[in-house]
């Protein structure tokens, strides 16, 4: 009896050739929208927003970066739990969230601390969240920001519902939801885009393409090379924007928000950026990516880029920059002190907030739990 030969695998393209073909396709399929080049010069000076907007965007990015940098230190000191860093993605998060008001909805993923801070989530509450304290879980009453979503893509359909509810209640408020390039492989992403289009929901979808779904690079996640084009399949506009250019992310998102408010429906915005840092503070990216992968991204840093521009244009001076940094640092330290003052939860809080009224079963379990911890 002869064994069947295993069919030979088709020849694999050399990685270099593959990369080159991807790059070529990218160029052919539309470049990224950009206002500010990495060296801090303006490629679209005609789209420069007013000075106060520029300074606000810079300030938001500085606040976010400070959180990210201090977060690492606090984690190593055992004063913050595992959290996903976002340093390098400030333009992608702050520029987009800055287009909202406190009447709008924000559905952030676990990596979107910068976006939540920009909408106004207090730093102390954000620290408490990443300390796994209930004080960080109760979102503030004056904001419509949801807790950071851990499951991937589930927030997208929910944003459609919130947007639709605003519309049905006669407001002009919108919902903004975040997702990563990995999340755009989930079914919920596609269902949400389809629902939003079909129902004309005032929704702005931010797809942060940061290159990696933990260890899997975007090129292995999907054969698609321009994720913004996924919008076409659902009959809604898709925009690809330089995710490290805060002027570009703000401009494009602001337009999408205005369109949504005007009843013109949803938009998908792909912000092309990079996760320079590990997936979480507990992750070791040296197992799955090389220095080559990271090459060039430090030079595209969104904060430094905006700083150069503001310095060039005279909106920022060495002195005003120093003042800003010390204000941001002082704000953070005060918030840290506040977060330190939050008491630990008591054991029975495990059973709180399951239903408006505890069921007989929960009441019984509460008595059991209290008897056990008191014993």
């Amino acid at each position, binding site marked *: 009896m002869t064994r069947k030969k295993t069919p030979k695998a088709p020849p694999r393209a050399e990685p270099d050739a593959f990369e080159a073909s991807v790059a070529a396709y990218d160029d052919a399929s539309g470049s990224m929208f950009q206002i500010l080049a990495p060296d801090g010069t303006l490629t679209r000076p005609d789209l420069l927003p007013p000075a106060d907007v520029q300074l606000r965007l810079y300030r938001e990015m500085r606040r976010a970066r400070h959180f990210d940098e201090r977060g690492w230190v606090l984690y190593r000191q055992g004063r913050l739990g595992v959290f996903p860093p976002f340093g390098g993605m400030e333009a992608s998060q702050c520029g987009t969230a800055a287009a909202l008001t406190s009447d709008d909805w924000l559905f952030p993923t676990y990596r979107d601390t910068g976006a939540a801070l920009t909408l106004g989530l207090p730093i102390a509450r954000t620290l408490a969240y990443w300390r796994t304290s209930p004080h960080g879980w109760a979102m503030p009453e004056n904001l419509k920001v949801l807790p950071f979503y851990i499951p991937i893509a589930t927030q997208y359909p929910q944003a459609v*519902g919130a947007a639709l509810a605003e519309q049905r209640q006669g407001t002009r408020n919108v919902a903004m939801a975040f997702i990563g390039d990995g999340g755009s492989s989930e079914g919920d992403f596609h269902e*949400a885009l389809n629902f939003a289009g079909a129902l004309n929901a005032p929704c702005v979808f931010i797809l942060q393409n940061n290159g990696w779904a933990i260890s899997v690079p975007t090129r292995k996640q999907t054969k698609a090379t321009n994720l913004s084009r996924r919008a076409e399949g659902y009959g809604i506009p898709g925009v690809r924007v330089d995710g490290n250019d805060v002027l570009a992310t703000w401009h494009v998102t602001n337009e999408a928000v205005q369109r949504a408010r005007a009843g013109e429906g949803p938009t998908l915005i792909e912000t092309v950026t990079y996760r320079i840092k590990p997936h979480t503070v507990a992750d070791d990216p040296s197992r799955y990516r090389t220095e080559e992968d990271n090459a060039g991204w430090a030079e595209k840093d969104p904060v430094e880029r905006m700083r150069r521009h503001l310095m060039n244009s005279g909106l920022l001076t060495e002195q005003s920059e120093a003042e800003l940094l010390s204000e941001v640092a002082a704000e953070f330290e005060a918030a840290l002190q506040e977060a330190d003052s939050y008491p630990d939860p008591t054991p029975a809080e495990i059973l709180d907030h399951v239903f408006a009224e505890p069921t007989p079963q929960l009441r019984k379990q509460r008595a059991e739990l209290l008897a056990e911890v008191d014993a």
Partner: protein
Amino acid sequence: MTATASKTKTMTMVAAINEALDLALANDPAVHIFGEDVGVMGGVFRATDGLQAKYGVDRVFDTPLAEAGIVGMGIGMGLAGLKPVAEIQFAGFLYPALDQILSHLGRFRHRTRSRYHLPMVIRAPYGGGVHTPEQHADSPEAILAHTPGVKVVIPSTPSDAKGLLLSAINDPDPVFFFEAIKLYRSVKEEVPEGDYRVPLGKARVVTQGDDVTVVCYGGMVEVAQKAAEAARTAGIGVEVIDLRTLVPMDTETVLQSVEKTGRVVIVTEAPRTAGFHSEISATIAEEAIEFLRAPIVRVTGFDAPYPPFTAIEDVYRPNPLRVAKAIRKVMAY
């Protein structure tokens, strides 16, 4: 049981459900109904018949065909102040939405320390006995009952369906409302008119008896009733308890009956292993074992997918004979 109206009207369960939805839409502008085919078509079982014409396409609307999208969108609507009432065409089609349900619907209040809550109702026809195609007859209630933060309601009569559905829609927390397909049109009874509520968490004693307690719900109540009637002719007094809601479960009513009878048969059409009947059984064992005169007997479906084979479907789904045999078994122990 509370009734604000004294008048009644004879109707089927599906008509009672339609009337409850109609009242809910009329009473509260926050109520919105949506799902596949619920608009123009009025639902595959006509539970939403005429509601879109009456309340408009903003209040009663068709969605794209995607269950995760339906539940996920409903969660967002609930967050933003509406009372979403979603229809999932068949309970067996809930599975694509389980991530939304398990990850979010059940735990939103908890994970926001009550900053947000989800007053959402998900209606879904369930169960067998009417020769539906493959995957249309599943009984997934145990999956939901095992999910913290959601309630599970399963009516067995038209008046309960109306009263429980209005309670579910007015409940501040998410409620799954499973409707036995077999019962939609097979039973008619007098249903109170107007805003009529049956509270969640209160079981119904269907028939009283001193010898055996039969615990059941939904489509199995009429099966148990038939078995109880047969037992009565043999001189066995059967107390049939219709749970009405699995979460919260009315443990009190069940235990009181067990203390009286000392014998228990539990009937469901869901698969055997790890079903809600196991929860009922464990609760009785924990709380009332000293009253038991015989081992608890479960009459259930099998640990196999619900059969799409019309000729032998009735072998899977418990029938009065199987229940009667179980009653005889606990009597003979």
